[in-house]
């Protein structure tokens, strides 16, 4: 496994693990329609249900509560649309943070624009936290939905989801959680966490891209996103993504087994990185939580004064073969690329242009971190000398 040395963008996507690749290879000749009643069809269905169990286990859910989807974006859209379509005749208020993923922000905007919902946008603190009292203050009698992500993809903040879930439950409000960045990086247990739905995406934890799941506590009277032939308890149509689901199941199994090992690994990488970097570039700053508290330990969002992160990233990639990110990868499709998350925590345009994200994964080695710091430092010096 060397094809991703120098890769420091695991929050964007991960390579598939050896175990996942092996399962996919085995699955090449499985081809029966899982809805078919033939022996082979049943076999495929059983394999899917095993993957469902592994996926459920990763978040402490029951297999019946897991709906396979085409990824985190579909899961988010499904959860939000399902809830809001139920009160389309009486549109109310949606409470959402300003630092959600675009799949949440854009579907919420859509319901505002098309169906007259009103939206209360919760701003995070300077360090990226959604404070529970801001949720409390935003509550209205007509609140239909609260949707807050568990961990932010750019800053790594872990939000006080447990507390927010209590508030939502106490007020009988549907609470959706985008768990895409959290699941596979920190323990998540829906038995303790009173959320109504939670999104997962396999490619964030060494599974294939294009497959995910929605945990749905109550699947009665669901408005499907994809109506169809009765698959997934009749609430998500479409012939099952057999290979994707198999890959996701294996990835979930491995993530559950390895989680604490990975966390320990990230702790080491993180502190080594910070020590080395701040020694060399003392005026670099962490945009996210200071000491990594309530933070995905694999995620570092940094600001280095007087340079452009874009130029830094270009030098890192082309001179040092290191990949970092300038905010969510998705944003790069757009013309104006200022991260909405960094704006939301109040960074100036200048600071945002000097900010970048590093995210480690299970394959990042201590040596890679050392090389990365050296590469950042050298590139920084080039840029400083160029700017005179």
């Amino acid at each position, binding site marked *: 496994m060397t094809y991703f040395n120098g890769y420091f963008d695991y929050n964007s996507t991960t390579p598939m693990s050896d175990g996942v690749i092996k399962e996919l290879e085995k699955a090449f000749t499985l081809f029966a329609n899982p809805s078919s009643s033939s022996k082979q069809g049943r076999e495929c269905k059983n394999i899917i249900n095993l993957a469902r169990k592994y996926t459920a286990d990763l978040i402490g859910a029951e297999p019946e509560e897991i709906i396979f989807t085409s990824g985190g974006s579909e899961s988010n859209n499904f959860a939000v649309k399902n809830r809001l379509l139920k009160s389309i005749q009486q549109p109310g208020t949606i409470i959402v943070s300003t630092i959600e993923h675009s799949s949440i922000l854009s579907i919420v905007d859509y319901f505002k624009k098309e169906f007259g919902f009103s939206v209360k946008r919760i701003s995070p603190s300077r360090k990226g936290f959604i404070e529970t009292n801001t949720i409390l203050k935003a509550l209205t009698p007509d609140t239909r939905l609260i949707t807050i992500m568990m961990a932010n993809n750019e800053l790594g903040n872990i939000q006080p989801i447990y507390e927010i879930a209590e508030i939502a439950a106490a007020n009988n409000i549907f609470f959706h959680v985008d768990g895409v960045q959290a699941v596979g990086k920190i323990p998540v247990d829906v038995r303790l966490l009173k959320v109504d739905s939670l999104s997962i995406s396999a490619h964030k934890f060494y599974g294939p891209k294009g497959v995910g799941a929605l945990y749905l506590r109550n699947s009665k009277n669901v408005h499907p996103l994809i109506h169809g032939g009765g698959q997934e308890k009749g609430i998500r149509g479409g012939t099952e993504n057999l290979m994707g689901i198999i890959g996701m199941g294996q990835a979930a199994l491995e993530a559950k087994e390895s989680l604490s090992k990975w966390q320990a690994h990230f702790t080491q990488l993180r502190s080594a990185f910070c020590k080395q970097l701040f020694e060399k570039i003392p005026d670099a700053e962490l945009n996210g939580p200071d000491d990594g508290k309530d933070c995905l330990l694999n995620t570092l969002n940094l600001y280095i004064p*007087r340079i*452009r992160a*874009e*130029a830094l990233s*270009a*030098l890192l990639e*082309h*001179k040092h073969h290191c990949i970092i990110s300038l905010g969510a990868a998705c944003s790069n499709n757009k*013309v104006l690329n200022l991260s909405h998350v960094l704006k939301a925590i109040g960074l100036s*345009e*200048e600071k945002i*242009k000097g900010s970048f994200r590093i995210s480690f994964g299970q394959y990042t080695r201590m040596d890679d971190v050392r090389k990365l710091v050296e590469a950042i430092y050298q590139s920084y010096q*080039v*840029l400083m*000398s*160029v*700017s*005179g």
Partner: protein
Amino acid sequence: MYNSIIIENFSNPCHSGKVTSPDFSIELGNPVCGDKIIVQGVISDDRVITESRFQAWGCATTIATANIFCGYLLNRCLDAIRGIKTEKINELLGELEPSQYHCLEMLRELFQKAGEISSDKQYN
């Protein structure tokens, strides 16, 4: 994303720096993205640019643009700079993506300003 000319030039910005006693100084800013380029140089008595250096603050393509510009100036006669054809300028950066077109604008402006350098040596 970046073509090979751009990559080569921002990876090894060999013409960056300042000139001790410059004969000219060109400054360029992009109010939208905040990029900034300063080019300084030395002109010999026979109107040849014998030294050219830049400082740049901006994205990778901006740095590459400045480096390419300085490389082009070096050892060329002022008249040749003034007479450069638009097509030639367009070629210098290689093929660009739409989001990089602003660098071509900058390069054109640099050449325009270079064209305005007084042929008389300015001692400043």
